[in-house]
């Protein structure tokens, strides 16, 4: 991205009041997540969420989804915090927060489709991280959920230009970031980086947002960035796409993220990718029904 383009983007972002301002509830929540587990107070989190009634209602709906392992109905945020734990409840709140970031009105990229992709990617990241014993699955979830923040920026800041970009991607069946590079001269990774700085996201999340299409470009959190790249790609090929089909063939072992992640997880070389792919199928129905139940609520 050229300096001039960056300047234009920054100006447009500054000019917007609604977005990209991080929702009030999510800022302390993100800060909370950085604290050691023993210092966490679930009640503080539920009190915080209760301040935003619409968000709280969405959280409850999501907490009762099988996607979060609940088999008995919970009727209150406190109940959800007790039965799901802080991290799951916080994942849920973040997920609903992302949904609320999306602009209303008409856009080529259906907000439901975008949210399904983000939520699907978050679930696959968490599942994938568990399978390869990669760090904290909840962190992987958040990284998967937020990796495409730059698309939200593009939807708000450049609605007209982004519409053309999306149409190009759909027409040619190419990845969205390639279409962005062709038509805008920058990608959602670039605009996402600006938002990550604006929001003061943690360094690891900022790297995921900025480098998830090029993991070797990240500096300190290459493993997490690579994990998100592979999960994102799997999602786009398997049905959690952006509402159009990428007409291509993907060999995950040839992706730059594979070599990077294999350095962190040597067992990845023997990994059963077919099984992970088939397991993803089980998320599809639940994500579709959950998203349609919540949006717009």
């Amino acid at each position, binding site marked *: 991205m050229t300096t001039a383009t960056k300047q234009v983007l920054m100006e447009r972002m500054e000019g917007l009041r609604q977005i990209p301002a991080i929702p009030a509830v999510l800022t302390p929540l993100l800060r909370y997540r950085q604290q050691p587990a023993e210092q966490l107070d679930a009640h503080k989190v539920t009190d915080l969420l209760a301040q935003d009634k619409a968000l709280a209602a969405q959280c409850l709906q999501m907490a009762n989804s*099988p996607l979060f392992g609940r*088999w008995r109905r919970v009727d209150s945020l406190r109940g959800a915090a007790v039965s799901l734990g802080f991290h799951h409840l916080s994942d849920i709140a973040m997920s609903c927060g992302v949904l609320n970031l999306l602009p209303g009105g008409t856009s080529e990229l259906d907000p439901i489709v975008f949210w399904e992709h983000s939520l699907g990617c978050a679930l696959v990241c968490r599942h994938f991280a568990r399978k390869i014993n990669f760090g904290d699955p909840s962190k992987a979830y958040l990284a998967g959920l937020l990796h495409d923040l730059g698309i939200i920026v593009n939807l708000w800041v450049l609605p007209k230009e982004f519409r053309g970009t999306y149409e190009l991607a759909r027409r040619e069946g190419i990845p969205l970031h390639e279409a962005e590079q062709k038509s805008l001269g920058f990608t959602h990774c670039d605009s996402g980086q600006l938002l990550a700085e604006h929001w003061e996201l943690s360094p690891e999340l900022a790297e995921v947002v900025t480098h998830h299409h090029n993991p070797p470009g990240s500096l300190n959190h290459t493993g997490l960035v690579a994990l998100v790249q592979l999960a994102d790609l799997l999602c786009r*090929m398997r049905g959690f796409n952006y509402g159009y*089909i990428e007409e291509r*063939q993907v060999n995950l072992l040839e992706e730059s993220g594979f070599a990077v992640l294999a350095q962190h997880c040597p067992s990845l070389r023997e990994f*059963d990718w077919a*099984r992970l792919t088939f397991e993803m199928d*089980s998320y599809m*129905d639940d994500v579709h029904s959950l998203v349609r139940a919540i949006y717009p609520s």
Partner: protein
Amino acid sequence: MLDPASLTATSKPAATPLVRNAVRMITAPQMRPGTGVVGPPEPDLVRIRDLIYQVAGIFHPENKLCLLQERCNRRMKEIQIATLREYCECLILRPAGQAELIALLNEITIGETCFFRNQPHLDALRQIVIPRILETKAKFPFRRLRLWSAGCSTGEEPYTLSMLLMEETSRRLKDWTFEILATDLNERSLVHARNAVYGSYSTRNLTAYYRLKYFIPVGEQLQVNPAARASVTFSRINLSDDARMTFMRSIDIVFCCNVLIYFDLASKRRVIQHFYNNLLPHGYLFLGHSESLYGVSDDFRLVHLPGATAYVKTERTPAGGSSI
């Protein structure tokens, strides 16, 4: 699809240690069941799912576990077993476990055969795989494609492929010829396939376009028209017959859906080795929708296509391994 009853006579049955070994490898239940299933997955059902994946390579995601449960229930009723736990033990421990596993696999794959069975596979074949192969073969003097439907059962799959390729003859396949070799072990299935007459169940996925263009009504049924039949050649081949398998040469794409699940690991490896040798360097292998080659062969690389997976033949390195 092969007839499992006749297959057991010609291929080695899975040794009990294989099953035992697979059972040891079963992982603890994870994730959660899908829509329509109340409560977490039944642990014994998950054990059976994992056993089937380890032994047969066919996977049931959580949202399909209720279907597996139905299939198990049918078998349990048949052999008068009351609980899933007992049934799981029956599959694993008793000497009859191998025969029961095949009976369960039959239940799982029953009704799988129909025209246009796996649309994402077919879309990927048409939109991505064929263009890639044509590009690779553009420098060859012969403009010919050769597909093999291995375990073609009553012929729905090879005829589907024939129709799909005919649709491309005015576009991508202009000036190309193609042939589809269709083989099965079961002679009765082959007689049905050659007659090419099908009832409503087999033709349930047909769109009006294909129905009108490629079929002729025969009473209540439909017969594939001569044009679509012309490019398909049927023959009886046992995939475990090394001598016959050696003669299948210069293949671009193999379709082998829900066939390998009946083979034990050693037989499966031998068949896959044959496919490797039969395929041209750029060749593709398509398995069933949730079927995997994991732990069977390193000679093929899993690739993701939109909504589908396939295996691509890898180049062997001089040291004997496979390159990515």
